[in-house]
């Protein structure tokens, strides 16, 4: 439910909602966990650097919480 909410909100601040996902797994599901990690890493790689990282690279400094 909260992930749904986030997926609705993220585009409003310029972030692709595909960058967040939630999976429910038990501790006994090691192989599935590895698979998800690989898939998700690949997805993020495809999407490229996040606009936030890009902004930080440009020397932006804001958005730091204490």
């Amino acid at each position, binding site marked *: 439910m*909260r992930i749904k*909410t*986030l997926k609705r*909100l*993220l585009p*409003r*601040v*310029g*972030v692709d909602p595909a960058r967040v996902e939630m999976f429910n797994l038990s501790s006994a599901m090691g192989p599935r966990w590895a698979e998800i990690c690989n898939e998700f890493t690949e997805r993020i790689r495809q999407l490229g650097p996040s*606009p*936030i990282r890009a*902004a*930080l690279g*440009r*020397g*932006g*400094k*804001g*958005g*730091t*919480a*204490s």
Partner: protein
Amino acid sequence: MIVGKQKPIEETWAMVKDFSRVLVFGCNTCVAVCHEGGNKEAQILASLMRMKATQEGLSLEIRDSGIERQCEHEFFESAEKDIEWADAVLSLACGVGVQFMVKRYPEILVYPGLDTCFLGDVEKNGLFTESCQACGKCVLAETAGICPVSRCAKRVLNGPCGGSNKGACEINKDLPCAWQLIVDRLEALGRLADYERLAPIKDWSTERAGGPRKLIHEEFMK
């Protein structure tokens, strides 16, 4: 409870982006129940705003905090430091909470993060519906326990009006006609004859029309 809805982030962002220390401040009672203004929602909104700040290259610092209720002095102690740190507070309370903070912290700029919507109930998960307008003179005893002041689009006290359509209000087919509900309930209770009692002209002076209202309990005042 009071139901509110977060303002679009573009609107709240425009309020706070030119400050250097912004506190997004949750109110964890009514507006937390409707998932719009609780401490959790304050965390999320602060986080989203940090993302925005970074992308826009702004050097403002955004923190989040929250308390149980922003409409009562006794809850503020735990957040006093955060509030004093900020040069602007984006309050996620209803309009009551925002104004209470304005009174309590005259030096700090307090902005509304929500649009306060109505007094309502949790009809079911995720569905909140209006059911009282605080008119100051309850008519529920005369209307089979269903309020025409808040639930009829014309607040008619002798309804239904000509717009009642197959049980729904003419303005929205998903909105039940309050007077259909009243008539149905009177019938179910075997009291349909009560329908013919004319509701007298209402005294609206106890409502908004009479100006801001107060309730005073002298015995509790120090």
